[in-house]
C-alpha cells in the first residue's frame, strides 16, 4: 500500500501552479528556497503542515500566507472574466490614450496587482462596451506579473497529466487524463487486482493505476528496453519510484526479450553458486555484487513464473509498437472474462487492431499444459477443459473504439459559454473482453453471423487507382 496524506510534509511532491497557469513540479526538501521567478520565492519549511490545494500569497519576500476562500473565489472570478475577455469577441481597437491612462493609474496608485484587476474589470463589463474588455485584457496581462500567488497541488492523475502534457506531450504519447481514467474504469481497476501493463508513456498510466488502487495491486510491466522508462512515476513522490514499487512487491518488470525467451533470459542471468567458504573469502564489494546478482536472478525467475501463470485481471497497452504485435504475445496471459484496453493517439491504428482482433483466436489450454505439473490442485472442471483443449479457443468480444473528451465551460453570471479554444489532440481507446469459445459449436446454424476467418482485406497500397 502506498501512503497519501492531505498535508504537505518534508520531501512531499508538490505541483506549484502559478497565476499564469504554468505548472511546476518540486520535491520539498527541508529549508530550501523555491524561486518562482517573477512571482517571487518562498521557503519550503513554510509549506510543511499546510493542506494541499490551498492558495498561498507571497505577501513579503519569502513570506507566505494561506489565502482565505473568499479571496480565492474573487481571484478565480477575475481570472475567468479576463480569460473570457481574451477569448471572446475582444479583438477591438484600443486607443493608445486608454492604454496610457491604465498604465498611469496602476503605477501611480501603487495598487497591488489583484486589486488593480478587480477595480478595473468590475467596472462596466457590459457587452456594449467592448473597448473596456480590451482594457481589462491588457490589465490582466500586466496583472499576471504582479500577482504573487500560487497553489500547491497534490500529485494526482489530473495534475500529473496536465504537467506532462505541458512539458513533454510526446513522451507520454499525448495521453490525456480523460483517456487514463476511462481506461482505468473500463479495465475494472480495483483494489487487489493483478494487472499486465505495457506502458510507454513514461509510466504515466501506471502511476495513475497505482494511485487509483493505492498500491493495493500487483502489476507486471512489460517494456521494450533493458530497463523500463518510468520517469513519470517520481511525480507521485518517492514511494512511487520503480525501485520502491519493486521492493514493496507491487511491481514486476520484464522486457520483451525475457518474455519471448524466458529460459535464455534466466540462463544469461545465472550465477554459479558460491560455497559458504568462498563467500567468506570474498571482498565485501564482491560479495554484495554476488548477492545482488543472485537476487536479480531470483526476481527474474519469480517474475517469469508469475507471468507464465497468466490469468491477469486486465491488460492495458499504451505502446508505440503496433498494438497487434503486443497483443499477440500478451493476450494469452489475460484471464477469461477480463477486459483488454489498448490506447493509441490515432483512431486508424485502433481500427486496424480492431479488425485483427476480430479474427484473433488462440487455442485454449496450451499455455496451461506448459506448467502442467504446477496445476495438480486445480478444479475438476478445469482439468476437463484441458482434456478437450482443442475444442476451445480464446477470443475477444465487445470490441469497441472509444473517443472520450471533456468540454470545459466558463460558468459566470450572464456570461456562460464553452471555452473558446481548447487542446485538440486526444487519443482513442480500444476495449474488448476475453472469452472462451467452443470450436465445435461455432459452426452451428442459428449462431449470430460472424465474419469469415481470414476474410480478405486487400489493401489498396500498391494497386493502381
Amino acid at each position, binding site marked *: 500500500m502506498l501512503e497519501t496524506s492531505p498535508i504537505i510534509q518534508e520531501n512531499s511532491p508538490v505541483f506549484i501552479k502559478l497565476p499564469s497557469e504554468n505548472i511546476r513540479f518540486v520535491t520539498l526538501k527541508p529549508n530550501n528556497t523555491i524561486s518562482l521567478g517573477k512571482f517571487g520565492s518562498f521557503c519550503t519549511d513554510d509549506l510543511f503542515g499546510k493542506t494541499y490545494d490551498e492558495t498561498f500569497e507571497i505577501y513579503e519576500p519569502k513570506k507566505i500566507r494561506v489565502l482565505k476562500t473568499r479571496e480565492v*473565489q474573487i481571484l478565480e472570478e477575475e481570472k475567468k472574466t479576463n480569460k473570457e475577455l481574451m477569448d471572446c469577441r475582444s479583438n477591438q481597437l484600443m486607443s493608445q490614450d486608454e492604454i496610457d491612462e491604465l498604465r498611469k493609474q496602476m503605477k501611480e496608485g501603487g495598487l497591488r496587482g489583484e486589486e488593480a484587476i478587480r477595480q478595473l474589470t468590475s467596472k462596466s463589463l457590459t457587452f456594449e462596451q467592448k473597448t473596456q474588455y480590451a482594457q481589462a485584457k491588457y490589465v490582466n496581462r500586466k496583472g499576471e506579473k504582479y500577482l504573487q500567488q500560487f497553489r500547491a497541488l497534490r500529485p494526482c492523475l489530473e495534475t500529473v497529466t496536465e504537467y506532462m502534457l505541458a512539458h513533454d506531450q510526446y513522451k507520454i504519447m499525448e495521453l490525456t487524463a480523460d483517456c487514463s481514467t476511462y481506461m482505468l474504469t473500463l479495465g475494472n481497476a480495483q483494489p487487489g487486482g493483478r494487472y499486465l501493463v505495457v506502458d510507454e508513456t513514461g509510466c504515466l498510466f501506471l502511476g495513475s493505476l497505482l494511485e487509483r488502487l493505492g498500491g493495493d495491486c500487483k502489476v507486471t510491466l512489460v517494456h521494450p528496453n533493458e530497463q523500463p522508462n518510468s520517469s513519470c512515476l517520481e511525480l507521485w513522490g518517492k514511494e512511487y519510484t520503480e525501485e520502491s514499487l519493486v521492493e514493496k512487491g507491487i511491481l514486476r518488470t520484464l522486457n520483451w526479450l525475457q518474455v519471448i525467451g524466458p529460459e535464455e533470459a534466466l540462463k544469461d542471468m545465472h550465477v554459479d553458486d558460491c560455497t559458504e567458504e568462498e563467500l567468506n573469502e570474498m571482498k565485501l564489494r564482491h560479495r554484495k555484487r554476488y548477492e545482488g546478482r543472485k537476487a536479480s536472478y531470483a526476481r527474474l525467475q519469480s517474475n517469469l513464473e508469475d507471468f507464465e501463470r497468466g490469468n491477469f485481471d486486465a491488460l492495458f497497452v499504451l505502446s508505440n509498437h503496433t498494438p497487434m504485435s503486443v497483443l499477440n504475445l500478451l493476450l494469452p496471459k489475460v484471464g477469461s472474462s477480463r477486459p483488454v484496453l489498448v490506447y493509441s493517439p490515432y483512431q486508424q491504428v485502433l481500427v486496424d487492431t480492431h479488425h485483427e482482433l476480430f479474427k484473433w483466436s488462440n487455442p485454449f489450454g496450451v499455455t496451461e499444459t506448459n506448467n502442467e505439473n504446477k496445476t495438480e490442485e486445480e478444479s475438476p472442471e478445469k482439468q476437463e477443459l484441458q482434456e478437450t483443449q482443442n475444442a476451445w479457443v480464446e477470443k475477444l468480444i465487445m470490441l469497441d473504439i472509444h473517443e472520450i473528451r471533456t468540454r470545459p*465551460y466558463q460558468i459566470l453570471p450572464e456570461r456562460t459559454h464553452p471555452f473558446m479554444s481548447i487542446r485538440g489532440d486526444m487519443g482513442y481507446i480500444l476495449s474488448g473482453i476475453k472469452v472462451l469459445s467452443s470450436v465445435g459449436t461455432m459452426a452451428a446454424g442459428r449462431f449470430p453471423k460472424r465474419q469469415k476467418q481470414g476474410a480478405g482485406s486487400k489493401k489498396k497500397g500498391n494497386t493502381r487507382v
Partner: protein
Amino acid sequence: MVFSKYKEFVEDGDLVVAWIGRNKLLPLKIEDGQTFHNQYGAFPHSEMIGKRYGQQISSSAKQGFIYLLQPTPELWTLALPHRTQIVYTPDISIIFEKLRIVHGTRVIEAGTGSASMSHALSRTVGPSGKLYSYEYHASRYETALQEFRDHNMLDEVNGNTRLTHRDVCKDGFEIAESSLEVDAIFLDLPAPWEAIPHLIKHVNRNGSTRICCFSPCMEQIQRSATALQASGWCDIEMLEVSYKQWAARKTRVIRVDDSIERLKEVKRHRTEGFERRKERQRLEKELAESAENGEETTDSPISVPSEPPSKAPATTERNHKRIREGDEDYEWTDVARIDSNLKNHTSYLLFAVHLPSQLDNESESTE
C-alpha cells in the same frame, strides 16, 4: 465487497452478466434448476455451474450461444434495470478523475437512482473507503437496498456502502451513530442547490473535499454554482463529457476503371442486342414482305426468344446481389463508423473544491 473478488468459475448463486449479442447484456442469477430462454433456445443454469467465467454456453438444442461474464460495475451499467436515467461509464470515469476517487476515498452520493454510479464508487474506493448513498424515493430505495445486499456492497455484510432513505435537500446527510466527514460528494438531484448548504458539516477538516453536481439543464448548473460559491467552495469548473463509440468496418474500393469496364460491357451487350435485333428485323421484314404485311413490330413485345449474349456481364449480376461486408471477392478498405444514434448530452458536470481555510473563515465569522 461489490460483486465478488475476481474468480474463475461460475458457482450456484452467482450473479453473472450474460452476453446475448452485440450491445445486449442481461443480468442472470444462477440458480440450479432454473433455465434461461431466448430466441436461440433454452440455457439450463445447471449447464452453467462449474463453467469458466467468459465461457460460451450453447443452448440445449445447440441453436445459439451466450457468454457468461463476471459482473463489473461497467458491465452492470450496460445490463442493469433502469429505475431512473442512469449515469453512464464515460461520465463516471471523468467524475472519478475530477473527484479524485481512489482506493480509500470516502464518498457521499445522492440520490442513488439506478445505482450505476454506486457500483462503480463502491468498487473503486474498496475496503478502506466508504460510500454513503442516499435515496429519497421509497420504492427505489427498497430496490437498491436489496440490490446492494445481493451484490455484497452493504457495510453490514462486510462491504463499504451505507444506503439511507432520506430527502437530503430537506433533512441533510447526518447519520446518527457517526460523524460523517468525506473526501468527495456526488449530487445527482433535481435541485442540488437545496442540498449544498447541508454539506458544510461533512467536509474534511484537514484536507480538501471535492464535489460534483450532475444536472441536465444549464439553469440548474447556474443555480448550483451560486450555491456552492455561497457555501465557500472554490475552483468552480463546469464541463460536459463528449463521448463517441466507433466500430471498425470495411468499405468497398471501387475504381472508376471498374465502372468504365461495366459501361463497356453494357455497350457490347447492347451492340450485340442491336445486331441481333437488326438481323431479326431483317428476317421479320422478309417474313412480312412475303406475307404482304407492312405492320411494324420493333416497338411491340417480340415473341422471338432472344438469347442472352455469350458473355454475361458478371459485374452487373454481382451488383444485384447484396455483398457481404468483407467478401473476399472484392477489395475493401478499413474505416471507422460511429453509432448511428449518438448521445449528444447526458448532463453538465459542475465541480468545486472545499478547503480547510474556508473553515477558518467560518470560525472567524462566528467569533
